[in-house]
């Protein structure tokens, strides 16, 4: 990816500022998700409150970054790689905002799950490990963005495919338990929602990886098969 200097130092500065904002937002979303999973695992309602409160910051960053993109496009008439970067960033930021939303959702549900007090710690541990795997994908996607690293991006996409199987298994187990213990149903249903949210976070990370392929290669791989994407991203 072409990171060379523009003749206009001002333009360079604007792009650098934009990217660092994206990294900031990525870091914030990541932190939110980590905290939400931690809150779920530990039951600390303070953490959950924090996550819910901080979601506004994530949203504010989305608005800011989109605004920056629009102004750069208007002022600089970017072409080629610069243009793709701006378009890609706009999409990535949208994914990050949704990740933030999922974190908040998990935090909210945490209350209900722990208040019910009927959940076994082993089930919590399962969810925690799922969450950590999803978090790893998010971190990888963010790293791939910073380094314009297509190999890592493809890894994220591969992981997501495998992850889908995992979450689907977890979902089946939860459904089984609901049938076995209908009195715990409300809490179990909440856990189902949390599982779904974690699955969505992994999807968002995968989407970010697709946008990175777009930025670097200029190819829109949003609805391609993994094999096609691998071919496209890893060629030459």
């Amino acid at each position, binding site marked *: 990816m072409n990171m060379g200097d523009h003749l206009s130092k001002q333009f360079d500065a604007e792009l650098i500022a934009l990217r660092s904002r994206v990294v900031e937002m990525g870091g914030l979303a990541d932190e939110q998700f980590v905290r939400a999973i931690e809150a779920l695992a530990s039951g600390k309602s303070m953490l959950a409150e924090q996550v819910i409160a901080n979601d506004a910051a994530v949203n504010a960053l989305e608005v800011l970054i989109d605004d920056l993109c629009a102004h750069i496009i208007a002022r600089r*008439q970017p072409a080629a790689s610069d243009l793709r970067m701006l378009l890609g960033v706009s999409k990535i930021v949208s994914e990050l905002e949704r990740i933030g939303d999922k974190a908040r959702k998990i935090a909210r549900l945490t209350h209900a799950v722990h208040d019910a007090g009927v959940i076994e710690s082993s089930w919590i541990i399962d969810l925690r490990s799922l969450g950590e795997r999803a978090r790893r994908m998010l971190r990888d996607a963010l790293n791939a963005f910073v380094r314009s690293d297509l190999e890592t991006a493809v890894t994220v996409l591969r992981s997501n495919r495998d992850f889908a199987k995992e979450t689907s298994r977890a979902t089946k187990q939860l459904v089984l338990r609901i049938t076995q213990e209908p009195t715990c149903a409300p809490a179990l249903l909440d856990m189902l929602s949390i599982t779904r949210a974690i699955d969505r976070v992994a999807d968002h990370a995968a989407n970010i990886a697709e946008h990175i392929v777009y930025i670097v290669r200029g190819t829109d791989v949003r609805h*391609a098969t993994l094999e*096609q994407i691998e071919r496209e991203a890893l060629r030459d």
Partner: protein
Amino acid sequence: MTRMNDERRKPDLSTLTPKAQVRDLSFFYGAKQALKSINLSVYDRKVTALIGPSGCGKSTFLRCFNRMHDLYPGNRYQGEIRLFPDDVNLLSPQVDPIEVRMRLSMVFQKPNPFPKSIFENVAYGLRIRGERSRSVLIDRVEEALKGAALWNEVKERLDDVATTLSGGQQQRLCIARALACDPELLLFDEPTSALDPIATASIEELIHELREKITILIVTHNMQQAARVSDFTAYMYLGDLVEFGWTDDVFFRPKQKQTEDYITGRFG
């Protein structure tokens, strides 16, 4: 997968007919080589833009087409420019430059109407082609002025001296003068660099309309203009053709790093 292959959105190049084909074109100003073995197809009824930094040879390249270099001593061509449909080499010493210039027309950077009346300006090309009949001249002049989107502004004052027109009008007059001769290929050498943005926009509109009937080759140092106006873009640097392709591709996903650098403003 449907979106991997961008070429699907545009017709395959093999289905397009070339109007001219440049084969291994080199050009020398005395001992200095200004063009290095250029190969390029100019497709029929499409607009091809030539971009590149100053001194890259794009104007030199354009002026090879109508043998303008023959007017000055010490110039040498190598290679061919073949014009279709009759497949004649425009650069051949056996081909009369006057004939070449009768088939191709050129519009220059600074509007250069003759200091004669508007009518005479447009009619001149026809006169030297032997047209004597006043009524035919009147019709052809009107047609050309309409083709250049100038007719309505000047139809009441065809006998006024051309230099009383504004810059944008003068350039459209030069375009009318070029069109009157029914050229097979229209060469534009930075046609709007001396004009204000509104005049520039009107010329670009005109080019857009003209492309349906006539093949256009345009040199411009304004990249955005190339992006707006052309179907194909060729990027030149120091006498070499670095990249040639559909404008959409060149401006969105250039293949060469040099092209990418130039287009994104990473070097002048």
